[in-house]
């Protein structure tokens, strides 16, 4: 299992051909109290860079982009019901899972060290 990061402050946990996606602790700290999220429908085919989810805080409404392409195979209803989880533990408050369409797209993403350098 590896964890990768994007410029847009999303994390991906890669397990075989499944990617679990959420937003980073840095992202949640910038957003402030998250009050609402909107997730894609299961079965939707996402292209890399497509707006996949919406996260709303008391300060901002932001799109979450698909960091890689693939089919949405599961969404986290628990985090929809209680968006505060994103603030308390962003790394376990995942948004949705993708069946990875092209492993090659993972190549452009950052590892933990690179991401930490990115936000420093």
């Amino acid at each position, binding site marked *: 299992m590896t964890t990768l990061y994007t410029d847009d402050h999303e994390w991906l946990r890669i397990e075989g051909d499944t990617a679990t996606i959420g937003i980073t602790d840095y992202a949640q700290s910038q957003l*402030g*109290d998250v*009050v*609402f999220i*909107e997730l894609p429908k299961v079965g939707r085919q996402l292209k890399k860079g497509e707006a996949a989810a919406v996260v*709303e*805080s*008391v*300060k*901002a*409404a932001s*799109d979450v982009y698909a960091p890689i392409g693939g089919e949405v195979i599961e969404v986290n209803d628990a985090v929809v019901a209680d*968006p*505060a989880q994103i603030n308390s533990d962003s790394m376990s408050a995942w948004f949705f899972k993708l069946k990875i369409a092209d492993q090659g797209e993972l190549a452009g993403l950052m590892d933990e060290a690179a991401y930490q350098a990115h936000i420093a």
Partner: protein
Amino acid sequence: MSKPNPAAAKAAVTFADRHIGPSAQDVAAMLTTVGADSLDALMDETLPPAIRQREPLDLGPALSETDALAHMRELAGQNRLMVSLIGQGYSGTILPTVIQRNILENPAWYTAYTPYQPEISQGRLEALLNFQTMIGDLTALDIANASLLDEGTAAAEAMALAERMSQVKTKAFFVDHEVHPQTLAVLRTRAEPLGWRIIIGDPMRDLEGAEVFGGVLQYPGTSGVIRDLREPIAALKAKGALAIIAADLLALTLLTPPGELGADIAVGSAQRFGVPMGYGGPHAAYMAVRDAYKRSLPGRIVGLSIDARGEPAYRLALQTREQHIRREKATSNICTAQVLLAVISSMYAVYHGPEGLTQIARDIHQRTAVLAAGLAALGYAPRHDQFFDTLSIDAGAEASAIFARAQDAGLNLRVTGNTLGIALDETTTPEIVEAVWRAFGGALAYDDIEAKAADRLPEGLRRTSAFLTHPVFHAHRSETELLRYMRRLSDRDLALDRAMIPLGSCTMKLNATTEMIPLTWPEFGSLHPFAPRDQAAGYHAMFTRLEAALAAMTGYDAVSLQPNSGAQGEYAGLLAIRAYHAARGEGHRKICLIPSSAHGTNPASAHMVGMSVVVVACDAGGNVDVDDLRAKAEKHRDDLAAIMITYPSTHGVFEEHIRDICDIVHANGGQVYLDGANLNAQVGLARPGDYGADVSHFNLHKTFCIPHGGGGPGMGPIGVKAHLAPYLPGDGNREVPADGVGPVSAAPYGSASILVISYIYILMMGGAGLRRATEIAILNANYIATRLDPHFPVLYRNHVGRVAHECIVDPRAFKTSAGVTVDDIAKRLIDYGFHAPTMSFPVAGTLMIEPTESESKAEIDRFCDAMIAIREEIAEIEGGRFAVEASPLRLAPHTVHDIADDTWDRAYSRTEGCFPKGTSRTDKYWSPVGRVDNAYGDRNLVCSCPPMEDYALAAAAE
């Protein structure tokens, strides 16, 4: 124009002297503080020489307050008061005098700002929650917003919501042929730039096979017909489309409501709930939706949350949905609402209660049924058997003769070809019904016909569900109770009648009493927007002069008074630019450049007219980065449509390069939309039309004194150069020329009645007074910048260190040094008796301060002293006296509940907390609630009056 009164002409003190806060002595002292030799010298340092207007603003001599009112009496006398039976979404109504005097004519209500600071806005937030509850109950839908501009734009917003939420991908929208014509016209204007097709038809027949993302149906129809809309609603929903009902609120007291018919969305006007027609407005429109669509509901929504003590507190909910945060992703540019009018309508319902409203509706229906029976007896049977308050009569060749006889009798009927429309309302007496019969050629007696007239509401559509069951709609039926309820609510709020409201970009200046006086004269209030023009000669004389004055001040060639808000002005201005390009065969020009510092309505408006936004960077000084602008304009030279630029900038600075910016955009084929939100820094000193702008809107509720009303009404007329004049908004009752632009508002002159406020202001100030106001606004802002800079650095200035009419102060360093946020400062200001400056716009974490010319030096000093005292409190946190979490800043605002606690275990004294330096114990303003928890409210959305159990709990706790 009336002759000036010689006694008044000699008076030493002019209106301008009263409107402007600082005295001549104060001005001298303030000039010394800011280090300027004279006002002229300060202006020379503040505005770029390249844009200065050298000739004086000539608007004729300033009138005294007495003469201005005499002049308005003359204009009022030129408006003819008739009995309006035109209907079409506007009805006569009786505004209870207790509400007129204590809300509409009461500065505690009309001078308040939009309730962004919830702690000091609990009164009007409660009134707005009552409005939402009333709308939700009457429409039987789950959640309502706290008002839109008018029924036409509410329908257009509903269409946009449907397009976004529908599962159907087709770009067509169905419009009932029974929709009011002005609503249809506004829908067409909105749909066209986005490529949406409007399909008009009979929903009972034409929905089959129509591929649409939504449809709007009128209930009752514009001709008066009441149809059972269950089937067409079901048909729309079966297609995956959204079903929208435009409903008459009063009819809903008797008829099955839209929610029970299956509708997804209801829209309409609350005008007939006590708000005068005003030749078009202002009135509050409403929108209510099913729960599934609540997060897509445009406009402002009041919700319930809790304060720091866990007590219930109201606030605006779902703020992130507003365009100021979503920007180009916004689906609507709605900003200004119609708060004052929504409050009046809600109080009308509080005053009458459900039984009273039902009785009013029954009486109107009864008279309509009697009128119908009499007309049938005269051989003019109405077209429909089932109706509420409106009849359509096919009068054949007699139509024009009947119409003329009615006019002679003082009655306005609606005429469409040979069809006459007659709409009754709360003010229609049996004598009026008899006069209508006479116009149709028969002398019938009301009492004779009444005995034979039966109820004409459809059996299957009678309302059975209860509404307005909440105690608030039952507990204030005596005038004494209502009077005290309204007073109790206004006492909770901090409006301009108590303290300076230093909101940057909002221009909270004096709304002088004389400017407000004619507003409630019937000659201005009672005119129907579609009354024949010759009955509104006084209005039209005023429009002509107001347009000329606005053009003279701004350097434009033509003005449209139609847009009902600044954002609607932006939309109208961009539509003009779009139509201009299209007429020249350059319809492909769709790129709109917008600086990163722009107000969020700019990108939202651009999006609404089908333009794509390209953001232009700002440099370190906060100015538009001219190199970046040039690069982007040149890159898009083949498809550049416009730039939207605010001047002076949203950063409160006159940028030196505005002429260059305009030239670059023109050189690359674009037009310049100059956002007039900050026009109050230019009147008399510079004219946008002279230095390169093609079109601007003017926020009459900022620069020209229309009060903010607690969050509306507003007006946003636009001025254009001659080449754009053919593309000003059209009239909903007339054919739009092929390359012209349709209406953006339901009424041709928008909220016509409040134009009197701006008109009188201009008359009483005169050209010299207006220029003086601009100069003092700039002096006041520079004075504040000078006083506060040592304590809170001023973020942006021009190259010689001057700010325009406002300044941004930057407390972000205190986040690091003491953990203090901009919220802490804003809430602490409440303890000092002040409304906070604008927070986090246009720069996150900062405060933007705008004093306006109306604030005196004494009040400005009181404000600066409070800010400086807060800085000292921050120093105490930095010095370790208390942690930020235990500081009077974080625990602000302090309430009576706090000071009355038996135990006081805070790190500072009760006096330090509740009566900080310089505050008066005698005149203390107490925030009724502690700091409101924003996240709690958005996570647990409650947007109607809390249920009775909550009141019981609160009572038990006391």
